[in-house]
């Protein structure tokens, strides 16, 4: 076998087979695996977002046109500009922030309680026979009931104050968290439990090292359902007997036929939903970076 031709010492080591016969090293010929530059990918992504924004933009344009041409009464559907002005007014007067804060506190308190209770119940039933018998069958029965149907009962029990609203949110949140976490705990691979046994892991270590991380994806799915349902319930709860909150703002607006304010409230709810969903997705990415289904950055 002949000695490989010597390449310039500064060049990357090249396999002898790839070198031209004259021993020179050519650079930059290997573009068989050309990949689009990151910038091109960014442009494509921007284009993607742009095309997704097209639909809403068309709706906005039609809405604007309909208002400008007086196709619909401004009482039913005020012009986009009017709604924008209403939003600015609400922000300047501080009314929006005030009521938003109230709504946020309700939603977060309800979410916190519901998540804690749902996860704790799921752990209890998922890890013990007694829990399974005592709780799971009951929960599975109640889950098919629309949570909002409980409202009259909750009002009778707790009145029409803050606790009722928070409780309704908490109740609605508990179920998706419980059901998804419970299913995930049950589905934890028994082969890993077996492995833990051979490594001498005690019950607590087993829960910490195997059960909890294994059930995390299910819990996070539950969390995503929970956040979206929490807004849904809050909207309804806030429109009955509330004295503050985004829902109250909208109910007030209805009584004085301020459709523009109602639309502002709707937009705020939509934004809240969007933001919370994005947050949960971020948490998912971060927490499940080990999983192949969610590529983390």
């Amino acid at each position, binding site marked *: 076998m002949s000695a490989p031709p010597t390449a310039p010492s500064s060049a990357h080591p090249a396999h002898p087979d790839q070198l031209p016969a004259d021993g020179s090293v050519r650079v930059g010929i290997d573009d068989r695996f050309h990949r689009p530059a990151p910038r091109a990918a960014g442009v494509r992504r921007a284009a993607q977002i742009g095309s997704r924004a097209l639909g809403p933009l068309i709706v906005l344009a039609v809405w604007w046109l309909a208002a400008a041409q007086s196709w619909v009464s401004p009482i039913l559907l005020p012009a986009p500009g009017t709604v924008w002005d209403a939003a600015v007014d609400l922000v300047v007067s501080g009314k929006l922030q005030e009521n938003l804060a109230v709504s946020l506190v309700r939603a977060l308190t309800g979410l916190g309680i519901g998540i804690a209770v749902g996860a704790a119940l799921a752990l209890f039933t998922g890890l013990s026979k007694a829990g399974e018998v005592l709780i799971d069958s009951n929960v599975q029965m109640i889950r098919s009931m629309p949570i909002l149907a409980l409202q009259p009962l909750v009002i009778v029990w707790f009145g029409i104050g803050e606790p009722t609203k928070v409780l309704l949110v908490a109740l609605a949140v508990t179920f998706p968290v419980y059901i998804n976490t419970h299913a995930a705990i049950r589905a934890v691979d028994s*082969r*890993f439990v*077996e*492995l*833990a*046994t*051979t*490594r*001498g*892991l005690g019950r607590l*270590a087993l829960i910490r*090292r*195997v059960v909890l*991380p*294994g059930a*995390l994806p299910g819990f996070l799915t539950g969390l995503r359902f929970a956040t979206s349902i929490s807004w849904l319930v809050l909207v309804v709860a806030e429109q009955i007997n509330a004295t503050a909150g985004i829902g109250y703002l909208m109910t007030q607006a209805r009584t004085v036929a301020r459709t523009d304010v109602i639309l502002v409230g709707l937009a705020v709810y939509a934004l809240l939903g969007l933001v919370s969903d994005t947050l949960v997705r971020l948490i998912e990415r971060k927490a499940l*970076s*080990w*999983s*192949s289904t969610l590529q983390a950055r």
Partner: protein
Amino acid sequence: MVLDAPGTLTPATTTDDAGAAAPAPVVVEAHDVRRAFDGRGVLHGIDLTVRRGEFVALLGRSGSGKSTLLRILAKLDTDAAGTVSVPALPAVAFQDSRLLPWARVLPNVLLGLRDAAARERARTLLDDVGLGDRARAWPRQLSGGEQQRVALARALAGAPELLLMDEPFGALDALTRIRMHRLLRDLVSRYSPAVVLVTHDVDEAVLLADRVLVLTDGRLSLDEPIDLPATGRRSHPGFTALRSRLLTELGVGDDDH
């Protein structure tokens, strides 16, 4: 690098100056082990003694009860009859690597171990299996062979007296398997646990073990030492002879191959 070092097998007996062999301490002692599933007997009374430093291969047809016996030795089966005495925590290597997907490589190797010495050993073992630079990788970022190497490192990280393996290389391609054989032989000579290796691969058994068992109809129908040099076995004349004898014992004629 470890992969290239020649493997040596630890003898099952220690020889004193006079040349008389004193038997090494017993690591596994099983007596009259029986197991039935729903009334259907799988193991009909197994007696087995494994001593320190022994590398035992357990052969048997599919469904003969090899995994069942291994699980009993690993104390994973509580419904078996008979007496089994094994070290407190025998290490187990499964056919799948069984790495926790949510733990990085090093924590996987350290699973269940807390002392500082184990940490040191885990690092060394990862170097030994050629994955010292992948300690922070997620299991899904490793190839099948690499995952199995991590599993091997994990099995040895607790400095086990006994290493139980159930077809650990069954899911690997032929080339990777050959490399794993070398690696295993090397690691075993370095950390000297007693080994029970379940396999359906006669070549694997003859290449690696210094004692071979055949499980037939719920009993050990063959139990004999392998008298072959530690390395270069495949070209040894004794290799083919033993191989065809084992194949016959397993009910497969040599010509069927």
